């Protein structure tokens, strides 16, 4: 087999692990490809690098390819989300002034109950709450909006601003923002700098949120099927390794290196182990499934998930409700095609009711062993992709 090097852009985050591990531990090599990992300075740069062909694949916020298909934001290149790289992994946190008021009101920081957290936050706030997020099209924005509109908090009492995560702690300290929703390690960085406390994991709002996807240009995905297949399989093997409990420390070690996250191993391990430190007081909460890389078809690009994203984006931006074309950027067809020769247990369907699984549930699959993990929304709502409402 000819060995080809594929340039892949990523943001230095804990959830870039599948790509970094595929490169470092030889999963890419086993598929006879090399990965040239290119760190991006911002999500817009990452998108441009992919759009203009500087790289052929990228670690991307799951709503970005959907939003681009809908004509939102700059650049109109057609992208394909060929697999999900990670499920969940975000945290919502508050700055010191809010933290102090929440503590004064004897809020327990249970890091679990999203409705109770919203009620406490509403009572502790004195005006509109400004939340920092990494990018206008992100699961961070979607989770915040979903949470605010379905709790006492209310959509009208929050304002969402884009703040690059490395500057999030500064923005909190300067009082530019009151709170934030970011991916790890940035929540833990804010905690360790003593400028904020963690309030909720993203999974307290939606237990099955597709966080990052592996994106390519649609034309590349269709003209380079062989390379695409090798890339998807290499990343899948890497995430299978990442899902093993024994891999955790090694993974944290690799990510902590100077060329990747350049942060202490202990800080990175919090997201991987789900043992989060909430504040400078050192309170620890265990959050099972804080960030998932594999198991329960985590890497499968469900059409119902892109449909949910398209539906939410259309509503937020006052657009017409035909979201089928946008939802089709999650390429479950390509994923099936390229994963068929592996021992992966592929689900029988490409769409499901989102939020309907309350307990681990066996579903029809290629090997008949697939259990889907709970994917509940905090308010118990169920999203039907055939009847988005």
């Amino acid at each position: 087999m000819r060995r080809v090097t594929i340039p892949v852009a990523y943001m230095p985050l804990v959830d870039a692990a599948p790509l970094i591990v595929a490169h470092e531990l030889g999963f890419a090599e086993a598929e006879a490809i090399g990965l040239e990992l290119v760190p991006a300075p911002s999500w817009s740069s990452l998108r441009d690098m992919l759009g203009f062909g500087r790289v052929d694949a990228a670690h991307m916020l799951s709503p970005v390819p959907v939003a681009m298909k809908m004509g939102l934001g700059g650049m109109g290149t057609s992208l394909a989300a060929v697999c999900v790289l990670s499920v969940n992994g975000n945290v919502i946190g508050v700055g010191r002034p809010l933290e102090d008021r929440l503590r004064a009101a004897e809020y327990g920081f249970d890091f679990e109950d999203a409705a109770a957290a919203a009620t406490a936050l509403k009572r502790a706030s004195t005006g509109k709450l400004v939340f920092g997020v990494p990018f206008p099209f992100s699961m961070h924005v979607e989770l915040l909006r979903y949470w605010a509109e379905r709790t006492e908090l209310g959509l009208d009492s929050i304002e969402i601003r884009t703040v690059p995560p490395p500057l999030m702690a500064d923005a909190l300290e300067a009082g530019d923002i009151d709170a934030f929703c970011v991916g790890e390690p940035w929540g833990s960085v804010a905690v360790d700098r003593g400028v904020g406390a963690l309030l909720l994991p993203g999974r307290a709002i939606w237990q099955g949120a597709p966080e990052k996807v592996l994106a390519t240009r649609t034309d590349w995905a269709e003209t380079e099927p062989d390379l695409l297949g090798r890339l998807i399989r290499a990343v899948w093997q890497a995430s299978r390794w990442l899902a093993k409990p024994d891999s955790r420390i090694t993974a944290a070690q690799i990510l902590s290196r100077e060329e990747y996250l350049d942060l202490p191993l202990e800080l990175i391990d919090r997201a991987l182990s789900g043992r989060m430190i909430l504040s400078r007081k050192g309170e620890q909460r265990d959050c099972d499934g804080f960030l998932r890389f594999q198991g329960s078809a985590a890497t499968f690009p469900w059409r119902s998930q892109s449909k949910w994203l398209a539906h939410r984006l259309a509503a937020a931006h006052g657009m017409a409700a035909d979201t089928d074309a946008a939802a089709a950027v999650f390429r479950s067809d390509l994923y099936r095609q390229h994963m068929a020769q592996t021992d992966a247990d592929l689900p029988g369907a490409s769409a499901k009711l989102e939020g309907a699984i309350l307990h681990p549930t066996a579903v029809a699959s290629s090997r008949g062993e697939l259990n889907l993990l709970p994917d509940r929304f905090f308010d118990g709502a169920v999203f039907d992709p055939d009847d988005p409402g």
Partner: protein
Amino acid sequence: MQNRLTVVVVEEDRDRATGIVDALMKTGDCDVYVIGNYTSLARKIAEHAPDIVLIDIDNPTRDTMEELTLASGPLDRPVAMFVSGAAGGLAREAIEAGVSAYVVDGLAPERVKPVMDTAIARFSMVRQMRNELAETRRALEERKVIDRAKGLLMKAKGLDEDAAYALLRKTAMDQGRKVADVAEALVTAAGLLG
């Protein structure tokens, strides 16, 4: 007579910002403002109601600009990233030069072009200087490693400096590697054994 264009340059480094402003002023057709402090960036940009915003492509605060591309952003005039239509070729050039430009919707391409040409030239120059600096630094580092490797060989094998360098060069040629890489390997090995 057309109105003058308002250009905002987002740049922390004062010297770089001054260089860009001076170059743009020479085009004569625009007022240029610099924002060097990124807190409340979107609000500060909106206060200037710019026609064009220029920002280094490697600047992480670029993502804040994306917010302005949405109609619901704090600018009442939506800006678009400079990528489409007649300006498409320019956009690629700009990205290669390391500058991203956001342009108010509906601004005629021929009005944008002089500003973009200047910005592209300026950013290319800075990028080239940056690359040269990095190259000089790398060359210096290599020099240091080669000197240490020579020192190790002189001591271990009783060679003079020229003979030590000749040995390094011959080994590199035989193995099809760079002298600096062979020197690096030797220094690392010596460190492990020492």
